[in-house]
């Protein structure tokens, strides 16, 4: 069977929920960040697939993907700055230790 839109959507959904699973179960902040990257990539894949199969006459999906990649890069940089900061103050990047949110 020729791969089409549905195949790619399946792939992106799978990647999305794998990312979510990682985000929910990982205790290390860096690995949680990796999971977020997975989620972002699955979204990108979705945009590209829709652009390719449904509206090939436009390039909106493509641009969205480009911008998401740019934002993801910025996000990763800021996130890592925060993680390193947290590591300095708590001496750990275990998310279980970073539970100051409850105060």
């Amino acid at each position: 069977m020729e791969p089409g839109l549905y195949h790619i959507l399946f792939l992106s959904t799978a990647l999305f929920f794998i990312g979510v699973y990682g985000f929910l179960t990982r205790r290390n902040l860096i690995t949680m960040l990796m999971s977020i990257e997975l989620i972002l990539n699955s979204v990108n894949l979705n945009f590209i697939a829709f652009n390719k199969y449904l509206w090939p006459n436009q390039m909106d999906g493509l641009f969205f993907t480009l911008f998401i990649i740019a934002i993801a890069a910025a996000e990763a940089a800021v996130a890592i700055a925060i993680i390193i900061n947290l590591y300095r103050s708590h001496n750990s990047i275990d998310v279980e230790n970073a539970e100051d949110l409850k105060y």
Partner: protein
Amino acid sequence: MTGSDIIFYLLATLCVVFALLSVTTRHIFRAAIYLLFTLIGIAGIYFWLQYEFIAAVQIVVYVGGIVVLIIFSIFLTQQTGEQLPKQKLDRKIFAALVVFAGFALTMVQIYQHTFIETDEIAITPTVENIGKKMLAVDSGGYALPFEVISILLLAALIGCIVIALREKKNIEPQIQDDTEEHKGIV
């Protein structure tokens, strides 16, 4: 089954398998490498979809940038070779249940939905077309988002520097203050 199909399936399998490995392995360094493979697999799918520019950006930014950043931060914060702490089993089960439910729901919705394709003439996403569109100011042009993104990147840059700088000055007293405050509240 054509060679093209086989390549897609191979790439898809590669992505899913390495993504799974990436979120389940207990070696953080390996997780980063598995993520790298997943990202490369996704880049492959972009190639397969003939969106070469996006694929290139994917490799340059993700593989060359973000993953390297992540590995860099791992070296800064973690003793490599150490295994990651185990998550509680109930959390894992509950997360798996939620994730599976969400996945099932989404897939059911996708397969029940009929997507309508347009009949208009396709535009080839060449670098030239992308570039023109990106800087176009007429309707459908992306000049404004482009500028906004550039501002965002600048803000992120400055933000990172500020976060890093502030901490460097007086780390020690701040830690103590913080802990004492928390004790008081607890």
